[in-house]
């Protein structure tokens, strides 16, 4: 780890200005990922601007029925919040599916969105990684790629996004509030994560600070977050599914909102599966067809071909469960 400066400003404007003033400055939230990466030499900011003292730690209702979660709210606190639990249970479950109790106590909501991939090659500075060192190649492509992407990846990078929370937020159509040197803006979560350039994880510019996540009014339909991983806790998803399923009294799917985790460099909104479901009967056959529609584009690697059947059967099982809850 290299020496670095540390500041802890009292307001967001000062934090933004400070980071913007130095090209290799970084915001520090809970530090649960950034500090690891600094120890590993993956990143070496010369200035850390600690944002955990900013007044961004509240969860409050939005006009129009939504909910705003401040960026410095700890994961554990968001998961335990009565409004989050009552109105967005899928989000609470996704939060609790991530990391460990100790990590959730430290990690912030804003930092969670910005955590980096856990690809072993990205995290090892002695190995090739285009995301860490552009042009150096992708060691994962022909290496250990059990955990890597099957959707939306390229030869340049096959890393996956590690967050559980962001998968739920994607299915919830959350909006990310950002404050930057040039003012404030709101970014739909679908647009936060960019795709094609391994070097660039998000659409945020240097100095832009996530201040809050806005959740729209929840749909009046059952939802679920299901995570499949290699051990019972404290592991990243092999496959995860966030889903909301709205079925009418006649047993026809009115609407579905589905996102996958563990399959792509970003939370993967399963638009093709959603389209296949709308207007279809809420049956196991429809659910499998919808999963196949999304996974037809899958390009598995030698080490992760299992993710295709795993994603298919997990999504079908989640939808079956939601349909059964709705029928009750």
């Amino acid at each position, binding site marked *: *780890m*290299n*020496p670095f400066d540390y500041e802890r400003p009292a307001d967001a404007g000062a934090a933004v200005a400070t980071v913007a003033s130095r090209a290799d400055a970084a915001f520090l939230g809970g530090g649960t990922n950034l500090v690891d990466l600094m120890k590993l030499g993956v990143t070496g900011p010369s200035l850390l601007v600690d944002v955990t003292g900013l007044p961004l730690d509240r969860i409050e209702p939005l006009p129009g029925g939504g909910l705003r979660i401040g960026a410095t709210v700890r994961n554990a606190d968001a998961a335990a919040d009565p409004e989050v639990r009552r109105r967005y249970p899928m989000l609470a479950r996704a939060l609790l599916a991530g990391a460990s109790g100790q990590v959730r106590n430290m990690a912030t909501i804003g930092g969670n969105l910005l955590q980096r991939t856990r690809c*072993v090659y990205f995290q090892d500075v002695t190995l090739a990684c285009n995301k860490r060192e552009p042009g150096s190649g992708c*060691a994962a492509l022909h290496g*250990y790629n059990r955990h890597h992407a099957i959707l939306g990846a390229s030869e340049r990078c096959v890393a996956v996004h590690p967050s559980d929370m962001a998968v739920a937020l994607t299915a919830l159509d959350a909006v990310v509030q950002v404050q930057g040197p040039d003012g404030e803006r709101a970014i739909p979560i679908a647009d936060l994560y960019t795709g094609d350039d391994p070097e660039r994880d998000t659409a945020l510019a240097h100095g832009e600070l996530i201040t809050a996540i806005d959740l729209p009014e929840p749909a009046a339909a059952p939802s679920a977050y299901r995570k499949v991983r*290699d051990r019972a*806790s404290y592991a990243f998803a*092999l496959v995860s599914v966030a889903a909301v399923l709205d079925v009418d009294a006649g047993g026809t799917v009115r609407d579905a909102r589905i996102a996958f985790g563990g399959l792509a460099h970003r939370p993967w909104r399963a638009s093709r599966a959603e389209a296949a479901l709308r207007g279809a009967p809420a049956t196991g056959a429809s659910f499998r067809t919808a999963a196949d529609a999304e996974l037809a584009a899958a390009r598995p690697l030698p080490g992760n071909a299992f993710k295709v059947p*795993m994603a298919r059967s997990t999504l079908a099982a989640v939808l079956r469960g939601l349909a059964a809850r709705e029928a009750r």
Partner: protein
Amino acid sequence: MTSAPTGSRAIGAPVPRLEGRAKVTGTAPYAYDQPVEAPLYLAAVTSTSARGHITAIDTAAADRLDGVVAVLTHENAPRLASDENAELWVLQSDEVAFRGQLIGAVVASRPEIAAQAAGLVRVEYDARPHDVEPGPGRDDLYAPATVNTGLETDTIAGDVDAAMADAAVTLDRTYSTPLQFHVPMEPQTAVARWDRDGGGDRLTLYDSTQGVIRMRQIMAAVLGLPPDRVEVISPHVGGGFGSKLRPKAHHVLVALAARTVEGRPVKFALPRRLTFAGSGYRPSTVQRIRLGADADGRLTAIAHDAVGGTSKLVEFAEQTALATRTMYAAPNRRTTHRLAALDVSVPTVMRAPGEAPGMFALESAMDELAVACGLDPIELRVRNEPGRDPETGLPYSTRNLVACLREGARRFGWTDRDPAPAARLDDGWLTGTGVAAATYPAYPVIGPSNAAIRALAGGRYRVDIAAADIGTGSRTALTQIAADALAVPLDAVDLRLGESTLPAAAPAAGSMGLGGWGSAVIAAARAFREKYGTAPAEGAEAGATGAGVPGAGKVALHAFGAQFAEVRVHADTGEIRVPRLLGVFAVGRVVNPRTARSQLTGGMVMGLSAALHEHGVMDPGPGQVVTRDLADYHIAAHADVQDVDAVWIDEADPHYNELGAKGVGEIGIVGVAAAIANAAFHATGVRVRDLPLTPDAFLR
């Protein structure tokens, strides 16, 4: 439980760990915590080439950093005295034998500065092609002269091929186990101070080790010091599992650094990522098992051919097929071991070396044979129970495998088991149960242990022995043994261990610790009482060497056990859970039921972890293990460990030692992976022959 020896009061009592409070309150000083004055900190430079030579090493930027006191490389390091162990020939040449090898060190005033400076060292290599994977399809496998602990490489009796051709039922299967790492919570740590006085050079080493005497001897030889000029101190060890048994390169590195900055202590804790190439591991195995049986399931042939990897630097041959030599009766038998020599770091013993991977294969195969014969797997094992050790012909001192199986069946509720696979679905989960046998040798002690006893004031006694407590509870159990041997209350005994200045003792290895050390303590107490009676003057002192193994060469000495597992596999996702594990063991007399139970259940948890999670991945491209932290090298999390219970049957084995105690350190891990794999087959109908059993194995 067997009643304790006559007159015994402490042995058999569930005495809590004497140092338990200090450990859980964080006040027990481990090696790195030792209060030394004005320490310096070491950070290592490791090779990023898997084979070749260092052509240039530039330390200028590191040297310039404020706070850096010394930078060591092969170009300037002090010379060592002995290259007998190539792994310990540290910084003596430009040769690189594996990726992650220690090739330099920075010593600085703070650990952060040392780490930063280590990152500034630039190294260039003349890299050569490397070879890091043992199989398959190699034509250069070789037979080692012996396997670990000096045992025969191959044993052959009768004609397996002919018996297989004639057998009513045959099975020919290949099983594999991956690289496994010890990952003790306390990583490898050492604090070294080099002094010079009238007697010459002197090294003090605070270390996390399974044996201070062995450490002293080997370090003295490597450094060219008389053994009495090396002092090793290791009061507490946060887990070893074999990884802290032998001196490793980091010990030499920290000693070289200490010699360079003479008079100032140098502290080094191996970062977790460096432990994967720096502290040994269990090599991967590929094992072919062939079984031939008659129509009733009586074995006529049993063959176990094991292939594993080793390092070109130092050979380590895991005794993978050893257990097969003693488990079951069959007239035609064969066990073999072959190795691939690789450009990898040096493997070492890891909890139940040999038995842990070997019994996964054999006990999975026995389950497959039971299915093929239409027999209950317990009944199959009972039918193949040998009267004498099948290979040596010696009678067993005790062999209570069948008793363990029967007791386990009773406690576990095995009797009503429907043998049909994939027949039970509970709320989306396929459920099943499985069983496997366990065994572990009661090895003859690897070296005699000595103990000394001194009378203190007020009827108290000090008991000294250079034993190790690596978290097992041996400090407590030895105190119990001493109290009974002296016929005094437990709290009248002040036991010291973990220091090389104490009477020499064997290391904690091979489940031999308590038996060997306990025999020494008993002998010392006897010598003391014979010399001084029951009212010794303060300062009276006597020592003795522990007795050997009375039954050595006359009887076959083994511990046995039976592992039962209940498994649930999710029908949609393949997730696997183990709601219940029960182990029933025959391990001789149990000295401390509390710490023994912890050892056994701890072993079972490690077996569960090997069954479901542990998978060291070697990437042949860079020639490196890429699962180098606890996020990527999974061990069982708390949520994976549910109902785990260990019990033991009434047994004492006087042929092994006076206590009648066999070891409990390793047998707990043996057979667990097979029991779980067998239960997973029962649950799903899917037979997994390659560890670990991850969810993808069960997806259709």
